[in-house]
């Protein structure tokens, strides 16, 4: 667990922060909040702890509550630690029609953890999500910024095997 004093963006992330801030008028820097939260989540183990959110607040010179209320509103921000690979399974309409419930059941059995729980080896966590805009290639799940589509059980086996070998935390940014 990191402490407040250790929380600092890497040099490359600091550079990205500058680029992001340049996108808005100088007095409108709060607009950078969502991009910075994405960046912070990618930098700090895939979730946003209170100290990390306070750090983001300090960069933007806003109150911590302004960060908490935003982070808790949007579904992509994790407020608790997550598995190394967060498997976000779409379950809405077309995905449901094409077997998303079976996908979830198969995943739960394969990673040996129920939806929402981190697998015993810390590698995976299933999260059911709402429509990801992949209806024509259903069923699907998202891991980091990658979409895995037209899923079958065989495909899932290969994907998970590859990720176990890769062993690098998934990220959107």
């Amino acid at each position, binding site marked *: 667990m990191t402490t407040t004093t250790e929380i600092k963006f890497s040099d490359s992330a600091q550079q990205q922060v500058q680029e992001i801030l340049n*996108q808005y*008028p100088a007095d*409108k820097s*709060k*607009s*950078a*909040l*969502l*991009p910075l*939260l*994405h960046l912070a989540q990618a930098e700090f183990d895939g979730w946003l702890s209170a100290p990390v959110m306070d750090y983001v607040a300090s960069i*933007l010179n806003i109150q911590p509550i*302004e960060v908490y*209320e*935003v982070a808790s*509103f*949007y*579904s*992509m*921000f994790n407020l608790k630690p997550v598995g190394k690979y967060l498997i*976000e399974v779409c*379950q*809405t*309409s*077309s995905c*449901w*029609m*094409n*077997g998303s419930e*079976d*996908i979830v*059941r*198969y995943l*739960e*059995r394969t990673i040996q953890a129920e939806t929402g729980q981190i697998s015993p080896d810390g590698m995976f966590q299933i999260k059911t*999500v*709402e*429509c*990801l*805009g*992949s*209806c*024509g*290639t*259903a*069923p699907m799940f*998202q891991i*980091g*910024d*990658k*979409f895995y589509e*037209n899923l*079958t*059980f065989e495909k899932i086996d290969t994907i998970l095997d590859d990720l176990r070998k890769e062993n690098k935390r998934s990220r*959107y*940014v």
Partner: protein
Amino acid sequence: MSKKLLLTYDHIPGINTLEVYRQNNGYKSLEKALKTMKSDDIVEEVKKSGLRGRGGAGFPTGMKWSFLAKPEGVPRHLVCNADESEPGTFKDRYLMERIPHLLIEGMIVSSYALGANTSYIYVRGEYFYIIKILQNAIKEAYAAGLLGKNILGSGYDLDLYVQPGGGAYICGEETALLESLEGKRGNPRLKPPFPAVAGLWGRPTVVNNVETIAAVVPIVNFGGEEYAKIGIGKSTGTKLISASGHINKPGVYEIELGVPVEEFIYSDEYCGGIRNGKKLKAVVAGGSSVPILPTELILKTAKGEPRLMSYESLSDGGFATGTMLGSGGFIAMDEDTSIVKNLFTFARFYHHESCGQCSPCREGTGWMEKILKKFIDGKATMSDIDLLWDVQSKIEGKTICPLGEAAAWPVAAAIRHFRHEFEEYVKNPQSIHDVKHYFRLNNLVEA
């Protein structure tokens, strides 16, 4: 003019790069606009084209543009709504992934028309890989002098940025999107004032869908009048349809508005019919919010006329017997589909996505999900059907933004057209387990 205006070149290898895009008539509309047209000329062409907002509401784009306030010394903004989240809709993703420069070209031309010097593309956060594609394309455009200062020597300056969302359907509502772009929760604003007067940071702002902005490119290239000749009646031009569900060929199709629904479903040019030789049971024609229609009403209107893929024909008969074109999210369901279970996935969706600001929506969406869960669990009674109807009827028209309606309409339509199915689940709770939904996957033996 060919029937395809947006996806003419989508299958050309490398069309995502500036070089190949330019070899295929890319950025012609920008040259024409900057060298031969005044801002107001473009607004006039868009008005003449009859283009209607492609995000779902179908509001005339030229009119929306003409509402933009232009006070002296106050910057104006164009914001592209790429928060595509309506279940059943994936056309904007396809367009941005395949032909990112088409959107960027549309953004530059439209920004010029509106007098905006800083514009944003707000993309749903889940589409982060698309964000990267757009950022690369924008970088190419800057390097080629198509963005930045003095574009193509015209004296016009534009900066274009991509903003990620954080995962919230509500941010597809334009004022919620603006809140989000300001770094806040996506709570829709009370209107008026409309964004055209007080939008991003209180400045005059136009918010348009990806496909709408892309359509400005052919409108400028060919002229508004030529564009208006395509399509049927007040449904001018082409529309991207996201087709999914139990069809042989799911995908994104660009259609000329006015194609018969029957042709769209069964012809090999489009969906290629229903999978596994099954019969069609129902269609959600325009994204999850629009009323579901049974086969007989989606293929033909109540008057017995062929139903067409157009704003007017799909809404023929009102909600009693019709539906809406909406976002063009076309979900076809075969004879084995449980309408109630599908509706449950919609209800769960809207409950999850309600921003919580207005009580009728916040509480109502939760109740609708709960009641529908009772049907799924085989615990519903006949009075639950009336209760469900009652709850949905108390949301419509009582909320700040249309998410309330979007949540209520599919419930109302399912009861209106498939009440017998709700009754069947009450009389015979076991029957919900008899429904076979899964075709691509082998049935999984319960672990």
